[in-house]
């Protein structure tokens, strides 16, 4: 068992132990025989008691006892006194086992099983728990059992909350108490119990945890609880749509006549939906398409995921556009409506509720056309700066804004208060990290004007932390990269500074993210419209998420030529030479 000391034996002790072991083995043998032959006499059960006294971890003995109890109960015709006696006996055995080892999984489990039979008073159990709390306030078995008893006996969560109050009050470093508090609050807030509305309760909790944090900065408990609070402040459980391809207001070019283009080989193009968390239930009944393009009445939606997972952040369906009718430069509007009927559910069980609709135009033509040039300003090395007024970029931030509408006033206020508080803290690692996290949260729910400012401060903080706390250097570097990419994709101004058109590649839209010391990729969902991605001269060790985005977009034949891609990322600390090309349907 974990943490149990083993003593070295002297010769006399050795002999005594050997005798003991022999006795134990004969006990076990007899026990196993009783178990296999389903013998539940008093002697047999007493034998199991003896075994458990020696070793509370003998799970087979606990199972045997369960069977014995079932057997006895079936014979006594529910005489309540008899039942009580039988179950009391079990509780006694558990108690003595726990006295031997109060972390025995088998013992606690058995007690839960007995309680499940509807016996013992809440008072009894709580008294027992108090005893164990005094021995070790972090005993998670005891805490788990407490939660079990509370649920079984319908004890009030408010009362339990007061209990955590008392525990925290007497020892603020008791993280188990803080944790239990978070479990209780989650439940109370979720069911909107009286006096438990997030806009009032969460700010109160911030005040409570501030005491702990500022009393002893080195104590982890308060900081982790604070992180949980931030989570509650920022996160919206309901799934949201973060982006789509084609995006709202965009125009795509589809060639009906070209046989070589594998993109149009199947006469269809992909429609991609990107959610902020893994969801299931995306289908033709939950997503409706309104268009004159024939043959799209019953679309098959598939999650982009490994193996057979039925949930994913990314879902794709193929829209047909080739028909028997001739089409010379015909334009089709496609209207996509999501969430009108229920059915899209996150993997945590929350429904996609806000219905959303977007429209794009599909331009079908017979031959491959040169796409019209847009707003070229000047050029360097074959890259032309792209016009920032483009409709694609607008679509990017529209979704952000509508998603941020959710009940944001109290959230913004709570975060603003915390930010002010933490700015006052002297140079402390955890203080800076918390401030950075708070600012990230604020940026996520702010409007465009202020976003840029916040991101700059965040990036400075992570740079400081990389220097202050070298143990976690790589972690801070990764988060810094994430923040940087969030910044780049947060507004049209920021993004347009990195967007170009590549002349050699049919004026494809190119996002240049070179020389940014990036170690991780993020915000991929914002980049679905990008046709080329330049990640050279960075320090990447991961392209998480890019796989999702690129795997489902078709590649035309000409772009499957291996030379077209550079030699990939080889990373040393000095240089990383690469241009990543992720092809997209021809526009």
């Amino acid at each position, binding site marked *: *068992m974990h*943490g149990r000391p083993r003593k070295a*034996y002297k010769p006399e002790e050795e002999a005594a*132990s*050997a005798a003991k*072991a022999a006795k*134990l083995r004969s006990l076990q043998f007899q026990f196993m025989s009783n178990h296999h032959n389903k013998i539940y006499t008093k002697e047999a059960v007493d034998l199991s008691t003896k075994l458990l006294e020696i*070793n509370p*971890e*003998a*799970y087979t003995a606990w*199972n045997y006892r369960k069977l014995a109890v079932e057997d006895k109960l079936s014979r006594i015709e529910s005489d309540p006194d008899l039942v009580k006696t039988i179950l009391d006996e079990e509780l006694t055995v558990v108690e003595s086992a726990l006295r031997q080892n109060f972390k025995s999984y088998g013992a606690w*489990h058995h007690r839960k099983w007995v309680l499940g039979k509807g016996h013992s008073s809440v008072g009894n159990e709580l008294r027992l728990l108090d005893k164990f709390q005094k021995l*070790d*306030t*972090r005993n*998670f078995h005891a805490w*788990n059992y407490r939660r079990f008893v509370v649920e079984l006996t319908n004890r009030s969560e408010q009362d339990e909350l007061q209990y955590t*109050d008392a525990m*925290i*009050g*007497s020892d*603020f*470093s*008791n*993280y*188990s108490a803080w944790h239990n508090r978070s*479990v209780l609050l989650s439940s109370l807030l979720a069911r909107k119990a009286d006096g438990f509305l997030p806009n009032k309760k969460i700010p109160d909790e911030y005040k409570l945890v501030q*005491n702990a944090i500022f*009393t002893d900065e080195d*104590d*982890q*408990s308060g900081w982790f609880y604070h*992180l949980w609070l931030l*989570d509650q402040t920022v996160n919206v459980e309901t799934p949201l749509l973060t982006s789509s391809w084609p995006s709202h207001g965009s125009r795509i070019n589809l060639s009906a006549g070209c046989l070589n283009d594998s993109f149009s080989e199947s006469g269809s193009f992909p429609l991609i939906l990107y959610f902020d968390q*893994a969801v299931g239930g995306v289908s033709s009944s939950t997503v409706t398409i309104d268009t004159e393009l024939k043959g799209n009445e019953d679309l098959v939606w598939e999650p982009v995921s*490994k*193996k*057979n*997972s039925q*949930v*994913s952040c990314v879902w794709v369906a193929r829209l047909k556009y080739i028909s028997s009718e001739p089409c010379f430069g015909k334009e089709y509007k496609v209207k996509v409506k999501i969430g009108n009927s229920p059915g899209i559910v996150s*993997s945590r069980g929350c429904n996609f509720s806000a219905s959303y609709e977007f429209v794009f135009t599909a331009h079908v033509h017979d031959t491959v056309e040169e796409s019209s040039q847009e707003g070229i300003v000047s050029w360097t090395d074959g890259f032309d700066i792209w016009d920032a007024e483009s409709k694609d970029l607008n679509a990017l931030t529209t979704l952000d804004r509508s998603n941020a509408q959710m009940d944001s006033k109290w959230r913004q206020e709570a975060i603003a208060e915390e930010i002010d508080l933490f700015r006052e803290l002297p140079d402390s690692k955890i203080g800076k990290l918390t401030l950075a996290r708070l600012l990230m949260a604020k940026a996520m729910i702010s409007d465009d004007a202020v976003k840029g400012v916040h991101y700059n401060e965040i990036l400075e903080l992570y740079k400081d932390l990389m220097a202050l706390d*070298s*143990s*976690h250097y*790589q*972690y801070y570097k*990764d988060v810094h990269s994430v923040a940087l990419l969030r910044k780049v994709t947060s507004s049209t101004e920021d993004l347009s500074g990195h967007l170009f058109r590549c002349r050699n590649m049919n004026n494809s839209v190119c996002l240049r993210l070179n020389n940014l010391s990036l170690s991780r990729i993020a915000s991929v969902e914002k980049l679905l419209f990008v046709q080329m991605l330049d990640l050279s001269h960075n320090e990447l*060790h*991961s392209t*998480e998420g890019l*796989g999702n985005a690129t795997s489902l977009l078709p590649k035309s034949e000409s772009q*499957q030529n*291996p030379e077209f*891609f550079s030699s*990939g*990322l080889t*990373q040393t600390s000095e240089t990383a030479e690469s241009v*990543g090309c992720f092809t997209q349907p021809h526009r």
Partner: protein
Amino acid sequence: MLASSSGVIKELPSMTVSQREQFLVLNDVVFRIYSDFDACDIATQKFTYNRLFLIYKQLDYLTNGLRQRGPSLSSLDANRPWLCYWIIHSIALLGESVDDDLESNTIDFLGRCQLAHLGTSYAAVNTLVTLGIDKALSSIDRWVLDVGEMDVRACYLAISIASILNIVDDEITRGGIGGEPGSEAHAGNTYCGLATMALITEVDRLNLDSLMDWVVHQQGVEMGFHGRTNKLVDGCYTFWQVNLLFLFVSFIRLFMCFHEYRSSHEENAHDEDDLEDSDDDDSDENSNEGLLLPFSYHLRVRPVFDSLNLQRYVILCSMVLEGGLRNKPGKPRDFYHTGYCLSGLSVAQHAWSKDKDTPMNGDILGSYANHL
């Protein structure tokens, strides 16, 4: 002074048992070990690393453990297959193998195991795999699965020995995973949870960013890992936590693609040559599927935890001179800790390299001979 939520100011309480232990371990023991060590010259330091890491002492401790099934092991009867696994796995990590007699005795013993249970089945399977004897697997032809407590560990055990089981949808608490819904995040359970999700490729359901946040901050000031927030350091968590990070990193590993093709590493859940934990292979298998590198990269990436200092904790504080490893100074050695400290140490040594690359000199604390 501490203000409670009701506004009453209270005195700071006297320390609880845990806090007192923490204080003692930190100030009296671990930091004294570190400062004594740092005060030595480089030659002495090197000598110390190597002296502690005497392979033959470790092997003595381990093989004696395997031979004896003495009286002092009576309380661990139910755990004998675990002992086999911890011991044999440790021996393999040290680059050695067991002699034939001992090997066949072990296989016999495992075949006779009557108290089969998910945990012991897992231990038995892994022991046999480590011994590299496929046909011995068929010697365990009867899996009697007792009904016991159902939690994250059980899922992991069951799935990793290829049974089909319903997934217990545990809540993810503050990034880590608890044993059952409502429980505190705990290293062992988090590892089991993540590994389970990896094996059934449902990792997308987890919030990996917040999991990373939780794990990274579980490396304590002593540089060893905690099992839970604000609890004590323990050598065995070197394995549970570091392997978590290793699994995590393999999900976000670099890949470039221009077409999909199936992994050639498929169906190879237990690579007999791989001395690291077999679950690394499982996760490799999953992340290799679908989108793949047509050519491999050898990338050296700084790990998100402090690998060298973690190794320092294990070698200076967990290793016992006479052989074996322990939780922390002051606690006795045992096979459980020997197994997991060594496993964790191995993963930490390989933290910079990708796949099965050998680590470079600088990644390993002490001489290269310490490489596991």
